C-alpha cells in the first residue's frame, strides 16, 4: 500500500510550510515535498506603481532580510535608468548590506541553530531556544544579542530604519552618513569582528563533533555572485559550478534569463528555479552560504580568508552540516568588510546621489544581489516611469528542490519497510533549518519547532500519528 507521511514543522496555526514524505509499495521512501503555503502576488500588484517607489514596496516581501529587497530593487531602478551611482553611495549600500548579514546570520546561528547544539538535540524543547541559552550560558546569549544588535544598528544608521529601510533610492542614497555615526559604527564593528570570530570557533566545534552524514546530504551544482573571483555579496557576476566544483558558467546578472528557468509544482506556492541548459529537474542547483564559498576562489578579508582556506580542500562543500560553518565565515566576512568600508573616508562623502529624470517610454532594469539566503533577482519593466511588469526570484526558491531532496535523504535513513524511526522528526527539522528558509526562520526565534507526522494510507486513514512538542 502506498502511504503518505505528512510532517508539519510549521503547523496549521502558522500555515507557512509543511513536509510530506511519500512511501512506495514496499514502504521505502519514494519522494518528499516541502510545501510552501504562502503566496502574496507582488509580481502582479506592483504593476501600476511608480518605479521609484519599488525599493520601499518590495522590502515588505521579507522582514528578516528587507535590505536585500531594498537594494536589489534600487539596483534594478538604476539599471532601468541606465545610470551609475556615485562611489560613496555604492559603499553605503554595501555597508547597509553587511549590517544585514550580521543581523540575519547571527539571528540564524545563535537564535535558531545554536540552541540545538548548545542545549543538546534531545533537551527540553522549551529550553531549546535562545532563552534556554540565556539560562545555561548567559554570557553567550548576551553576546548573541549584542552581535545582532550591531547589525541592526548599522542598518538603522545607514538605511534610516532597521526593518524596511528607506534610504536607497534610484540614483544613490537619500542621505549621507554623519561623521558621528561613522565613528560609533566603526567602534561597534570592531566588537562585531571579535564576536563573529567567536561564532566561527563555535561552528568549528559543532562541525568537528556533529555527525554530518545523516542530514539528507545531496550533491548538486551551486550558484553565487563573485567579483574577480572573490566572495561578493553586493555586486559582481553570477558563477555556476557543477557538483564536482567545475565552473559551468559565469555570466552578467542582466543575462539571468538565458541561464535560469523556473518550474512550477502543484504542491507549493514557491517555484523551483533550475539551470536551463540542463533542464528540469536535472538542472537543480543550490545557493546561499556553502554555495557562495564553493563558487568563490577566495575571500578578500584576512580573518575570513584564513577560515575559508581551512576548508578549501573539502570543496565543493555538499553536506548540509557545512551550512552553519559557512554561515559563520560569511558573518566574519561581513563584519570585516563593514569595518573596511567604515575605515574608508569616502563613506562620509556628501556626494551620495545623482539627480535622475523620469523615464519616458519603455525601459527595463535588472538588479541582483546575494541575500543572506542566496541570490535575489529583481527585474522590472516600465512604461513612462510606471511599472508594467515585474519578475522576482527570491533566494529561498533556488534551494526549493534541494530541500525536497534533503528531506527525502533524511527520510531514507529513518524509514524502512514502512517502519518510521521517531528520530526522524529532529533530523528533518535540522535538515530544513540548514537552509534557513526565510518563511520560517524568525518564527523559531522565541520558541520551539514542534513537528507533527501523520502516516496516512492512500484512502486517507491515519495509521499512525507522531509528534514532537
Amino acid at each position: 500500500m502506498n502511504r503518505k507521511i505528512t510532517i508539519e514543522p510549521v503547523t496549521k496555526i502558522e500555515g507557512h510550510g509543511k513536509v510530506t514524505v511519500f512511501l512506495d509499495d514496499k514502504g521505502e521512501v519514494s519522494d518528499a515535498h516541502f510545501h510552501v503555503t504562502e503566496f502574496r502576488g507582488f509580481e502582479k500588484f506592483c504593476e501600476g506603481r511608480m518605479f521609484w517607489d519599488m525599493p520601499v514596496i518590495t522590502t515588505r516581501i521579507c522582514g528578516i532580510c528587507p535590505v536585500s529587497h531594498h537594494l536589489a530593487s534600487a539596483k534594478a531602478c538604476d539599471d532601468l535608468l541606465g545610470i551609475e551611482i556615485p562611489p560613496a553611495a555604492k559603499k553605503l549600500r554595501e555597508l547597509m548590506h553587511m549590517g544585514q548579514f550580521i543581523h540575519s546570520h547571527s539571528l540564524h546561528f545563535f537564535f535558531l541553530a545554536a540552541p540545538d547544539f548548545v542545549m543538546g538535540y534531545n533537551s527540553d524543547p522549551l529550553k531549546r531556544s535562545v532563552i534556554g541559552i540565556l539560562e545555561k550560558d548567559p554570557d553567550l546569549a548576551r553576546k548573541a544579542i549584542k552581535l545582532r544588535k550591531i547589525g541592526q544598528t548599522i542598518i538603522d544608521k545607514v538605511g534610516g530604519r532597521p526593518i524596511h529601510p528607506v534610504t536607497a533610492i534610484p540614483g544613490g542614497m537619500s542621505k549621507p552618513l554623519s561623521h558621528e555615526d561613522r565613528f560609533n559604527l566603526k567602534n561597534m564593528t570592531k566588537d562585531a569582528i571579535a564576536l563573529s570570530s567567536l561564532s566561527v570557533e563555535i561552528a568549528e566545534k559543532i562541525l568537528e563533533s556533529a555527525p554530518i552524514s545523516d542530514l539528507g546530504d545531496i550533491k548538486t551544482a551551486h550558484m553565487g555572485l563573485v567579483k574577480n573571483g572573490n566572495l561578493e555579496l553586493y555586486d559582481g557576476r553570477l558563477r555556476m559550478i557543477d557538483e564536482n566544483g567545475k565552473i559551468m558558467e559565469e555570466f552578467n546578472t542582466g543575462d539571468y534569463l538565458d541561464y535560469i528557468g523556473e518550474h512550477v509544482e502543484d504542491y507549493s506556492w514557491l517555484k523551483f528555479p533550475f539551470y536551463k541548459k540542463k533542464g528540469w529537474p536535472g538542472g537543480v542547483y543550490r545557493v546561499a552560504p556553502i554555495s557562495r564559498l564553493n563558487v568563490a576562489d577566495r575571500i578578500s578579508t584576512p580573518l575570513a580568508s584564513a577560515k575559508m582556506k581551512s576548508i578549501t580542500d573539502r570543496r565543493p562543500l555538499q553536506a548540509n552540516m557545512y551550512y552553519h560553518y559557512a554561515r559563520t565565515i560569511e558573518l566574519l566576512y561581513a563584519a570585516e568588510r563593514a569595518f573596511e568600508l567604515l575605515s574608508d573616508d569616502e563613506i562620509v562623502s556628501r556626494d551620495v546621489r545623482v539627480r535622475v529624470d523620469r523615464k519616458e517610454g519603455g525601459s527595463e532594469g535588472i538588479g541582483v544581489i546575494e541575500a543572506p539566503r542566496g541570490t535575489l533577482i529583481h527585474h522590472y519593466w516600465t512604461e513612462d516611469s510606471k511599472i508594467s511588469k515585474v519578475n522576482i526570484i527570491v533566494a529561498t526558491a533556488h534551494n526549493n528542490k534541494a530541500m525536497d531532496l534533503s528531506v527525502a535523504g533524511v527520510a531514507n535513513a529513518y524509514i524502512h519497510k514502512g517502519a518510521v524511526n521517531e528520530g526522524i522528526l529532529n533530523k528533518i527539522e535540522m535538515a530544513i533549518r540548514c537552509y534557513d528558509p526565510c518563511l520560517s526562520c524568525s518564527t523559531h526565534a522565541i520558541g520551539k519547532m514542534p513537528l507533527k507526522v501523520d502516516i496516512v494510507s492512500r484512502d486517507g486513514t491515519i495509521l499512525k500519528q507522531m509528534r514532537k512538542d
Partner: protein
Amino acid sequence: MGKIKVATGILQGCFGCHIAILDLHEELLDILSSMEIVRSPINDVKDVPEVDVGLLDGSVSNMDNENVAKIFREKSEKIVAFGTCACLGGVPGLRNLFDLQSVLNRGYIETESTVDGKIPSSDEIPKLLPYVKALHQVIDVDYKLPGCPPTPQRIKEFFVSLLNGREPVLPKKNLCHECLRQHKEMYVPKREFITDSVHSITELEHIDETLCFLEQGVLCMGPATREGCDSRCIKGNTPCRGCMGPTDDAMEQGAKMINALATILPAGGLMFLEDVVGVGYRYSMPVSIIPHVMEGK
C-alpha cells in the same frame, strides 16, 4: 502578580513585526521576566492554550489564515492586531486591486523566467481568498498596534500597558505633529500656492533634510498618517508613505491625503499625482472602499 500569558502568531506577513519584538534586544529580557510567551507562531493548533493575550501579525489572505485567526480568538482573552497588515491589510492588500486569477496567472504562468507554468492547485496548500482582509474583518479585535513594523519602543510601551492592566492607547494626531521639519510657507496666509507640481525625491536637485517634503513639491503622506513611528522615513530623508495608517478621524487614508493636498496644490495640481491609489492606499487597501468601486458590481 503572576506573569501574563501571551501567544503570538503570524498570518500572512513578512515576519518583520516579530523581528521588531526581537529588536528590543536586551530590553526584551526584562519584559520576559513578567510576561510568558507560551506559544510561538509555529505551534500546533490543538495546543493553543487559553491565554491572556493573543498577538496576531499579518493579513488574512488564505483559508488557513482565517482558521488560525478564529482559533486565536477562541483561546485569547484579548486579541491584538499587531502591525499594519493585521490592522489594515498592509502592502499585500494591494492585491485587491486585481482579480485573483490575473494575480495567479502572472505569478505562475506569465513571469518571464517561468517555464511550462501552471497554477499550483494541490490540496496540500491552502486556497487563497479572493481578497486580502484585515484581521478585524474576520474576528473581533480588542487592540490595534499599527506600524510597518511598529517601533520596538512602541511595542514595549504596549506590553508595559498590558502588564500594568492599563488600556493601551494610540497617538491620535497626524505625523506632521511629530515631524521636526520646518515650514517656510505652508502656514503663512497668502494667495499663491506652495508648489506647482508633484515630484519624486529622485528628481530633486537637492533633497533638503530640514524642509517639509510637501514644500519641496514631494508627496508626503504625513498629513494623512497617524504619528507614533518616530518619523523614521522622514529622518532618513525620504517622504512618509503612510505605514501607520490613518488617524482615528479619517476613514480613508488616500482620500484624506487628496483633501490635504488640495489646500497646497494649484487647481490642476492633482493631475500631476501619479499612482494616487498605490501611494494613498498602500497600506490600507483592504479597509478602503476602492476595490469595491473597481469591482463595479
